[in-house]
């Protein structure tokens, strides 16, 4: 009768370094809060694992800073990003213009800050709408199966068989460049990834014994989706959403670079790169292409690191 209360004690004898082992043990005791036998919920364990992921935490810090700067851009920009000043033509960085000025005499720092608004808006909005749409269709496909599933998955196949950049270029050219168009078009080509993942997870979850058991207790389909499917779908979706947003930012930069991004003269990172294509600028005026280039690379890299950290954190096989 006496059932031993199990606690997640680190497995002894594993070939971990002594130091790591000890740290884990301490963490476990801290997590136990002195209340024997009460385990942390899986989501709290995931949060804790994420916080131990240094690279991911640094990325989150950088991205939060970027987000803050983007939100505050109108307040903190030293100049109007679109104010043309012929007197300050391609000036190198100075006290007045920290990152110099471009070919129209506009302040590079101000344009960089305003460009962040566009990039982050596109990245976040496209990723959120793509995962939202993908989740909805994936759940529908996974639950109803049969011909509904077949139709949705064929549509997914169709979307995945297009070269996205070419079609997106075409669509933007037809619809006319604007932030909304770019978000819609990018989302339209990114939802299949999320849809496939959600469908696959929901198909495997619905075969679980605990779903049968829930049905036997009288739970309806909606309750089963809410209680048993949203949970397992969320971790891979979060990871996908981060990667999709990185992808969206890159796509937006590429579109702007090709001249089909946001309407001019609005500042975007890709647009700034496009304006810096000439040999003279590339060789002699690095302040015109280095800042937007670094900004794009750093943002995308950080988002990817964050995605990695999330993936590791959600993996229950990872300990602390």
């Amino acid at each position: 009768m006496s059932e031993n209360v199990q606690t997640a004690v680190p497995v002894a004898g594993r070939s971990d370094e002594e130091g790591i082992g000890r740290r884990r043990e301490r963490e476990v005791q801290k997590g136990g809060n002195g209340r024997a036998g009460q385990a942390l919920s899986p989501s709290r364990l995931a949060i804790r694992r994420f916080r131990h992921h240094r690279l991911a935490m640094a990325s989150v810090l950088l991205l939060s800073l970027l987000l803050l700067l983007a939100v505050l851009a109108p307040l903190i920009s030293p100049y109007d990003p679109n104010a043309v000043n012929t007197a300050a033509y391609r000036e190198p960085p100075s006290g007045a213009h920290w990152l110099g000025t471009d070919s129209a005499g506009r302040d590079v720092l101000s344009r960089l800050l305003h460009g962040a608004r566009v990039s982050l808006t596109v990245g976040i909005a496209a990723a959120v709408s793509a995962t939202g749409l993908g989740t909805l269709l994936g759940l529908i496909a996974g639950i109803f199966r049969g011909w509904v599933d077949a139709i949705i998955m064929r549509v997914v196949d169709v979307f995945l068989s297009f070269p996205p950049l070419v079609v997106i270029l075409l669509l933007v050219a037809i619809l006319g460049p604007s932030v909304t168009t770019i978000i819609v078009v990018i989302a339209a080509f990114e939802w299949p990834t999320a849809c496939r993942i959600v469908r696959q997870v929901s198909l495997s979850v619905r075969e679980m014994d605990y779903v049968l058991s829930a049905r036997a207790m009288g739970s309806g389909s909606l309750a089963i989706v809410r209680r048993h499917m949203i949970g397992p779908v969320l971790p891979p979706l979060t990871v996908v959403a981060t990667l999709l947003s990185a992808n969206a930012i890159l796509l937006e930069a590429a579109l702007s670079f090709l001249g089909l991004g946001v309407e001019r003269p609005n500042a975007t990172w890709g647009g700034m790169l496009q304006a810096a294509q000439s040999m003279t600028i590339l060789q002699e005026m690095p302040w015109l292409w280095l800042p937007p280039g670094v900004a794009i690379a750093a943002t995308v890299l950080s988002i990817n690191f964050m995605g990695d950290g999330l993936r590791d954190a959600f993996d229950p096989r990872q300990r602390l």
Partner: protein
Amino acid sequence: MNEMAEAREKRGAEREPLLSVRDLSVSLRSDEGLVQAVRNIGWDIYDGEVLAIVGESGSGKSVSVNTLLGLMRQDVAIVNSGHAEFGGRDLLNLGERELREVRGKDISVIFQDPMASFNPVKTIGDQISEAIRVHDERATRRWAWSRSITLLSMVGVPNPELRCKQYPHQYSGGMRQRAMIAMAMANRPRLLIADEPTTALDMTIQAQIIDVLRLVQKETGGAIVLITHDLGLVAELADRVLVMYAGKIVESAGVVELFASPRHPYTRALLESLPRIGDQSDELRSISGQMPSLVELPEGCAFHPRCSLSHDRQLCRELEPPLQETNSGSERLSACHFSRELDELDIFDR
């Protein structure tokens, strides 16, 4: 195919059965073709009764019961015929919404594998509470939680307040099965279906679970359908036994009579294959041969190729025996042409 109904009418309709299954046939789609998993079976269960359905794997025990609750995969199982009267309604005619009302409230199921029957990332208390709140809209979260604690302590889970907050992985197998039983009885069902409730557990825990099931029955006063291949469990718990073979009921009897003198050669062979304390032989007895493929059933009695009584008689080979009374007026039913010959054999005579 209504032999049992007729038998009951002859007895005079004393009590209304709680659940009355008639002429149930279920086929399953498979790669080899249609599997005749359940073939024209019928049975009754009364309030307060423990009815055991015994048979080897693949004899149709679980399929017949899961079909009643609409728990079979709809793309696999086809109900060819049948009625299942429960509380004035035919379970097999109910829509999904009405069936949902029945499931977990009037009829609950305890599954074989308590490891897999709980969601691993939700606490036990959360899952029992949900089972309560599905059927009772007025139940608050807090009320359902405290009821979960009561239920857990009822089935003998020590320290239920703490155990409610724990996850399935923190439970041992026996405790998890107790929790499963607690969840099944959460809404005081009139019928509890226990689908091999002790198969995944070791012997000592099995005995405890049997005690819990007894207690639960006393508590709710409902009926239990016990699906099992464990004859020991049948002897411990059941009042009446149905023996299934190849999708059919081959024998139906009270538990004492069944063990004392089986009226079907298959039942007899099952009982003979039980190892006994004091038995000196080195080998376990088994029934030679295999159950026939349910895709292509042999003509005649499905058991005749393995039967020790048949001696390859023509009747056995050609005519499938109906389930009928062994003696007129008796409640014992057997589907064997030569069930009377079994009288002469003593099963303990080795």
